[in-house]
């Protein structure tokens, strides 16, 4: 079985249509993207015992918040720890492992809900599911880059778009399932998690078994690798994950991702409350939920569009856009609020969130440009620790600044202004970090096998 799942077993036959690979990647990412919709279970989980309303012994929101935090931390850690393994074993084996972790995570979590044991939710969704998130997230990256050397940004953007799209599916689906299973004695959450676990497991396994890797030396018909001079940051060499983390470029990109995500995540987590407080009396909870949905759409679309755009203008220039335009937009948000224009306010935040998604989707191609394609999944996995850090840092920063403002007598509708300026400041730092990214020094290149363009020799060595 292990051999059947290995990289050697999934080398594509000549003439294989590479457009069969993105749906496999999407199958994985659409499922794990559910993580963004976890909050839909928050309120029902606080009344598991009382059902109609919370009673003594029911879980509190603060306790439930740890499930998501644990999942995001596990995502970063598992991507960093298993990145090299994912790269060497290939997408089918890692896809099966990710599917098993994600599906089982839901089932263990469902058991925890049924028995009302919170630690089982932490272990199931938080740790096991978080490992599925991390491994699943990086699984298709190197495969897509190998199949689409001519469109690295677009191909990885398409997969990572699925992560944004997953929430758009999971949110109404979970709502529908909970209503279907709800009864006077049950909120229906445990049953919903069982169904979701089984559906996600099946869907992700389908994607995993569809993966193929290109034969050594394969390249798209008529495509010629760009010369070093044509694209200064795009290297023909490879840097091992161990060496990559010793380069200043890795840490500069870590800052780039972390600050871009911190700024976006801070707004995303507060979007509903923010628009209601800024436009008090005009925006109710239902309209605010619509706003959050709209942000989800822009988050998803930004992943595909910005990453595809990066194929045209280059990764560094794309991040320059994120940071320069983002800084201006964050500074404009308080003015939009003051002007009373909901449309201007929503447009600013939607664009900001599109760049938040774009930042996630463009980073794998950026890494492939700077460190080569051979170890891109492993290097990407290590860089995702920046996401974990931002996942903790972003919301804390926004909540703390807002509370500090409110405590000092600032009206609630103006309490987000300073937060926006702080976020703009973070983006300025990100701008300079991105500006400082230069090609990796020769001494870090892997010289042992004088790698050809885009890791063709590297693939051969893995198979040997």
């Amino acid at each position: 079985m292990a051999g059947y799942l290995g990289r050697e077993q999934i080398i594509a036959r000549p003439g294989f249509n590479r457009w069969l690979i993105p749906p496999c990647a999407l199958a994985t990412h659409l499922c794990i993207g559910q993580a963004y919709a976890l909050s839909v279970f928050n309120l029902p989980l606080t009344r598991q015992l009382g059902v109609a309303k919370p009673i003594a012994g029911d879980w509190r929101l603060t306790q439930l918040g740890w499930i998501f935090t644990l999942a995001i931390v596990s995502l970063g850690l598992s991507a960093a720890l298993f990145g090299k393994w994912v790269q060497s074993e290939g997408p089918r084996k890692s896809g099966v492992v990710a599917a098993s972790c994600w599906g089982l995570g839901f089932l263990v979590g469902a058991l925890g809900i049924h028995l009302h044991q919170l630690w089982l939710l932490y272990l199931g969704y938080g740790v096991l599911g978080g490992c599925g998130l991390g491994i699943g997230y990086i699984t298709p990256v190197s495969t897509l880059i190998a199949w689409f050397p001519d469109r690295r940004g677009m191909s990885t953007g398409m997969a990572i778009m699925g992560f944004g799209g997953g929430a758009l599916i999971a949110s109404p689906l979970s709502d529908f399932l909970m209503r279907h299973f709800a009864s006077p004695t049950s909120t229906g959450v445990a049953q919903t998690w069982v169904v979701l676990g089984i559906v996600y497991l099946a869907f992700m396994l389908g994607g995993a078994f569809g993966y193929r890797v290109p034969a050594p030396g394969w390249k798209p018909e008529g495509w010629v690798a760009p010369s070093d001079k044509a694209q200064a940051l795009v290297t023909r060499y490879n840097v091992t994950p161990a060496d990559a983390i010793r380069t200043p470029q890795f840490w500069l990109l870590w800052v780039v991702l972390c600050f871009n995500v911190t700024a976006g995540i801070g707004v995303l987590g507060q979007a509903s409350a923010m628009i209601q407080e800024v436009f008090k009396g005009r925006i109710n909870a239902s309209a605010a939920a619509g706003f959050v949905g709209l942000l989800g759409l822009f988050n998803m679309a930004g992943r595909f569009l910005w990453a595809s755009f990066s194929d045209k203008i280059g990764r560094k220039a794309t991040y320059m856009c994120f940071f320069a335009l983002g800084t201006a937009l964050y500074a404009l948000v308080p003015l939009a609020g003051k002007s009373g224009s909901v449309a201007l306010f929503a447009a600013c935040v939607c664009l900001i969130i599109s760049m938040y998604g774009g930042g996630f989707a463009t980073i794998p191609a950026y890494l492939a440009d700077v460190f080569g394609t051979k170890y891109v999944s492993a290097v990407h996995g290590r860089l995702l620790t920046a996401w974990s850090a931002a996942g903790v840092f972003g919301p804390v920063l926004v909540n703390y600044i807002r509370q500090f403002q409110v405590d000092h007598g600032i009206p609630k509708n103006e309490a987000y202004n300073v937060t926006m300026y702080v976020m703009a400041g973070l983006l300025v730092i990100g701008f300079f970090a991105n500006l400082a990214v230069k090609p990796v020094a020769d001494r870090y290149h892997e010289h042992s096998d004088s790698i050809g363009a885009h890791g063709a020799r590297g693939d051969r060595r893995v198979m040997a």
Partner: protein
Amino acid sequence: MPTYDKTNNGTARAHETVMLALAWLAVGVPLLWGIVETLKKAMALFGAA
């Protein structure tokens, strides 16, 4: 024989086209459903704005 090879290639191509369509439908249909549901919800914002 060339004729035999052509038939095989044709069958393989047709099979691949069907697989391609099915694969994209499998991910495209749920995604489209999610987008439509989200847009329906977002209408509340447009009404308020």
